[in-house]
């Protein structure tokens, strides 16, 4: 059989493997992996919290503390600024959960929970409710609604700018969810297609010389895998820092 035709058949099969399939009752495989990631996050953080000391000697504790410090310095202090300390636990929870979810998906055979829109939708809803709630707490209900438009504008322009700022505020809910989902889904799809091409071409090496192309596909797969490791970290970072920036926009005095 022509390897290209086989590849086209395999791609449809690959696409179906990304659909949510019910495992037990209403539980899909993505929910199972989400619970697994949640358990891993809890275990990592709780075990580290048990072993905390003033001068950490354990390598594992060092690693987790470095991650927490990264969230605190890079996202808390740099993005939020004054009064960042009370937001750090929320940001660290988001960062660790998304980071572990993204990296679990890179292990062959595992699914990434952030590769489905429902999980990212829930995460972005949590972030959206949190920063609006913080804004209302800081300015009061009417004050927060007024503070959506930046101050110092001419009186005539205020309703127009307010409307645009409001639309962009509501769109944050959509963009946070779709950015994470799109990056993870597309990355895993690309990895799947390269892996499929490698197998299809290498299997046909006995019948035709074209199969040698499979080695090229394999090199491409390894390069893509390295890129996906970067993307997995970067998307967790971007999600958290954007949440931090939105919190600072909502709570700061304009």
């Amino acid at each position, binding site marked *: 059989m022509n390897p290209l035709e086989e590849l086209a058949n395999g791609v449809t099969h690959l696409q179906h493997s990304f659909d949510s399939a019910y495992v037990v009752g209403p539980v899909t495989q993505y929910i199972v992996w989400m619970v697994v990631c949640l358990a891993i996050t809890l275990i990592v953080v709780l075990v580290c919290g048990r072993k905390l000391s003033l001068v950490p000697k354990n390598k594992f504790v060092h690693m987790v503390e470095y991650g927490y410090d990264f969230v605190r310095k890079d996202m808390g202090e*740099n*993005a939020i600024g004054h009064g960042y300390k009370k937001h750090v636990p929320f940001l660290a929870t988001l960062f660790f959960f998304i980071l572990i979810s993204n990296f679990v998906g890179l292990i062959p055979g595992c699914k990434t929970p952030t590769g489905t829109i429902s999980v990212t939708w829930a995460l972005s809803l949590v972030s959206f409710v949190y920063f609006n709630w913080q804004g209302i707490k800081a300015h009061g209900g009417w004050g927060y609604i007024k503070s959506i438009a930046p101050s110092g504008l001419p009186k005539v322009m205020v309703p127009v700018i307010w409307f645009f700022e409001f639309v962009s505020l509501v*769109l944050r809910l959509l*963009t946070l969810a*779709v950015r994470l989902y799109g990056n993870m889904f597309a990355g895993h799809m690309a990895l799947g297609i390269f892996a499929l091409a490698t197998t299809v071409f290498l299997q046909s090496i006995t019948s035709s010389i074209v199969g040698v192309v499979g080695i090229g596909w394999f090199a491409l797969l390894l390069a893509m895998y390295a890129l996906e490791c970067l993307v997995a970290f970067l998307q967790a970072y*971007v999600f958290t*820092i954007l949440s931090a920036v939105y919190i600072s926009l909502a709570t700061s005095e304009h």
Partner: protein
Amino acid sequence: MEIALTLDALKLVGYGLAAIGPGLGIGIACYGCCVATARQPELQGRLFTNFIIGAALAEALALLGFVLAFIL
């Protein structure tokens, strides 16, 4: 082989067009961030935060196109 130019195909073309603008925008934002960091390396943290905000705003357009390709 018959090439069918269906509505579905046009949606994908529309998404491709929607990705051009944000691509240019993020490229320009990254250029600005790199140049500014080279001139004043001590401001790197704040510049990078601003770059991420700008990139997120530009990327929102591409993501809107991505969503519209699905729901239209």
